[in-house]
């Protein structure tokens, strides 16, 4: 009896990668999943932070898929190596800061190294020809195979019959006739497969699974880089871009105002790294200040903005505490900034 072949499936948490893994599993191949955490993944962060969302079910979609399929899942922290992909994408960005093609090449390349280390035979992805404008086009899909180094060890079961046969097909590890020829953006055939496989639980992430495809998030990232004069970033920087209202009233500093109690609690964890403002006479959000050379006038303006977002927004004055990183905490009485004086251009 021939030895059972082993494949690793890139599991994003969405439906296509789940179906791709299932199709190969159904052919008797041993499948395990791999999921890459870049720091930009949309994965319940906001749910975890915001109080109003705390009762929503919070589950990691890739784990949910692995549970459904009954496969092991290996989650890889690629925050550090991913920086090179984001900062210098060989194939450029999409509509926002999304380097989708380089990202796919990066992930398949990591999977290729993984199969070597773990003695697996091939790689599975849920890609579909013509489904995504950058990484899933007829002309870019061969590029992913080639530049990742996976070459014909990369099998795309949902659209394999639109592509030249790969090694697993040529060797008979999988039956090409039981693979699919799906193309384009329609979801009809995937939905038919959901029915056929009796899958009842799967995620349908609205707007994709990466913050870098989001215009508002991308604007905040560009602002962060421009203000620092450098595109360096740490995980905390990119997490903070997902939390609170970001306002840049002056070019040299930005304030992050928590929008509700859950965000205030989350930002508390960062207060030792930033000058910050709390409202004392009225309930209000925690406000962090990010920048260099922040003057007393800047702090006064930031305190008035913080007061504006507190329960004292209509009061004559609001008492606040201002903690400067370098000189400790002091108290101020400020007039909340009237709404008309908050320049819409300050919003990052």
């Amino acid at each position, binding site marked *: 009896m021939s030895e059972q072949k082993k494949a690793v499936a890139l599991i994003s948490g969405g439906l296509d990668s789940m179906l791709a893994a299932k199709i190969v599993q159904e052919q008797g191949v041993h499948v395990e999943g791999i999921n890459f955490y870049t720091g930009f993944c949309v994965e*319940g962060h906001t749910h975890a932070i915001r109080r109003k969302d705390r009762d929503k079910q*919070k*589950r990691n979609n890739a784990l949910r898929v692995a549970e459904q399929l009954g496969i092991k899942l290996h*989650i*890889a922290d690629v925050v550090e190596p991913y920086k090179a992909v984001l900062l210098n994408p060989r194939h450029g960005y999409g509509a926002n800061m999304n380097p989708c093609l380089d990202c796919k090449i990066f992930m398949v390349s990591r999977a290729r190294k993984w199969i070597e280390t773990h003695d697996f035979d091939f790689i599975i992805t849920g890609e579909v020809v013509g489904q995504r404008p950058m990484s899933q086009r007829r002309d870019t899909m061969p590029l992913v195979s080639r530049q990742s180094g996976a070459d014909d060890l990369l099998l795309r079961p949902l659209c394999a019959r639109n592509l030249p046969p790969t090694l697993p097909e040529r060797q008979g590890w999988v039956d090409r006739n039981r693979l699919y020829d799906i193309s384009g953006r329609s979801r009809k055939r995937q939905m038919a497969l959901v029915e056929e496989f009796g899958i009842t639980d799967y995620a349908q992430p609205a707007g994709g699974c990466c913050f870098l495809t989001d215009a508002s998030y991308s604007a905040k990232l560009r602002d962060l880089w421009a203000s620092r004069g450098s595109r360096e970033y740490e995980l905390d920087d990119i997490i903070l871009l997902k939390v609170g209202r970001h306002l840049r009233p002056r070019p040299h500093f930005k304030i992050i105002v928590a929008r509700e109690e859950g965000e205030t609690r989350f930002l508390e964890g960062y207060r030792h790294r930033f000058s910050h403002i709390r409202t004392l006479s009225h309930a209000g959000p925690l406000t962090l200040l990010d920048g260099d050379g922040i003057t007393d006038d800047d702090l006064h303006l930031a305190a008035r903005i913080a007061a504006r977002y507190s329960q004292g927004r209509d009061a004559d004055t609001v008492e606040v505490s201002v903690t400067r990183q370098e000189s400790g905490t002091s108290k101020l009485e400020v007039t909340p900034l009237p709404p008309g004086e908050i320049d819409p251009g300050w919003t990052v």
Partner: protein
Amino acid sequence: MSRYIVDARGLLCPLPVIRVQDRVAGLKPGDLVEAICSDPGALNDIPAWCKINGHQIVETIGERDEIRITVKVCNTR
């Protein structure tokens, strides 16, 4: 049997799971890993990770701001 602590407070999903996964790697059956988390997502994700990887949850304490989940290492393949 050894006991290890993973401090995942302030980390958001899926980092608490990754920290547990990386701590469990190389341990022996019967070893315990206690994860201290602040992301309520850990209440679902760590048990899900244990289930698919053949480990066992032996204790869960707390619900909201500080959650302690103890994992018993079972499958070391």
